[in-house]
Structures are given as structure tokens and as C-alpha cells.
């Protein structure tokens, strides 16, 4: 797992788009399963919003993977 070095800005990225493609579900279907709005999934996927731990855990449950495989830190471009 990639760990950003100290002193450098790290941002949270996610794999939701890829994971959705694997399950073959739309943003709306994913939103429906975890009882959030479609726009919320849209903004998370676009990297505009980092969800709370609760929501991140729920998303990970849908994809049946650990949270770290869906959300991870990356160095800022």
C-alpha cells in the first residue's frame, strides 16, 4: 500500500468508478443501496467530497472489500 512521505500534501482518492463497473451498477443504484442521494455518490466519485467514516464503510460493504481498497491516500498532483 502506498504511503505518502511526511511533509507532502496527501489527498484521498477512490476506486468507486472501477468497483461500480465490476459490479455493473450505476451511481443511482449504489446510492440507493446505502441510502444516500445520487449526487452524493457523484461528488465522492469526482473527488469533490470525502465521505464520513460511516459512509466509507458502507460503500466498502457494498463492494465487499476493505475500505483501504476503495479509499486511499495519494500525493497531490
Amino acid at each position: 500500500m502506498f504511503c505518502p512521505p511526511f511533509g507532502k500534501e496527501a489527498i484521498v482518492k477512490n476506486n468507486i468508478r472501477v468497483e461500480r463497473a465490476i459490479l455493473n451498477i450505476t451511481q443511482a443504484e449504489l446510492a440507493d443501496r446505502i441510502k444516500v442521494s445520487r449526487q452524493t455518490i457523484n461528488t465522492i466519485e469526482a473527488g469533490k467530497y470525502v465521505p464520513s467514516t460511516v459512509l466509507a464503510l458502507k460503500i466498502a460493504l457494498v463492494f465487499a472489500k476493505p475500505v483501504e481498497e476503495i479509499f486511499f491516500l495519494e500525493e497531490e498532483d
Partner: protein
Amino acid sequence: MYGLPYICVKQTLHTMKPRFLLEHSFKRIGWLLLFPAIVLGVAVLHFDFEINGFEIHAGEGFFMEGKPLNNLTGELAFVLVLAASFMVAFSKEKIEDEWVSRTRLESLQWSVYVNYALLLFANLFLFDGNFFIIMVYNMFTILFFFIGRFNFVLYVLPAIRKGGDREK
């Protein structure tokens, strides 16, 4: 370890329960009421519109007995505009989740900033009657800016973003 049924059980863990918000159905009522209310308000403010028979009179034994003191059309317009914009601004969304709550609070801050920036500008460059008109509008503009910004971020921005890339 991981599985879907878990989600239903843990639903109660959902954070940031919306507080002090009206039910979602009020939003529609608010929108329906808002435009007639604004038209009435503008008519009162700029064209001195008054509904006949809407005056209040001084009671018996009081100064100016029986004379009309005030026409209540302005008060009616104020109440209608305030009630309608309040309903539009502070009704729950269909799905009120954490991002919606966050956007709501952010938009509220944004609208206060914009409102006071414009008020500062008006204070410096407008005088007398013009400034009075601005003050009247200013009673509602925080709510109007909020409504505009909140709905833009909630419905317009995701649509633009979605148009740029393919879903699924």
C-alpha cells in the same frame, strides 16, 4: 466478514441527523407560494399597491378614531415572502444525507458573505431612497442567495459533471 445484510442493521449509525428542518413536502408549497408572494411584494414596494378593505382602523376612544391607520397589504406580502422562502430554504431534501447537510451549511455561510459584501457596496454607493429599497430587499436576500447557491450545488453541478463523463 463483509456482506450486504450488515448495512440494514447499521443504518442507525447514520451520522448528522438533520435537525430543525421542515418535511420535504413543504418545499413544493414554498415554491408555489414564492412567486406570487414576490410579485405582490414588488407591487407593494414599487407601485404602492394596496388591497381595498385591508386597512386597520383606530378603535373607539383612541386618537384618530375610525380613521384608517395602515393598509395591511405590505404586511401580508412580507409574511408571504418570508414564509415561502423559509419553506423553500429549510425543507428537507428527498434524501437528506451527510453531503446534503454539509452543502446546506456551506451555502448558508456563502450567502451571508455575499449578502454582506453587496450590502457594503450598496452602503457606499447608494443613498437615501435607493438605499432604503436595498434595505427592504436585504431582509430577504440572505435566504434568496442561499436558495440559489444550495440548489445550484445540489442539482446543477452534478448534472454538469455527469455530462462530462460516462456513467456505468
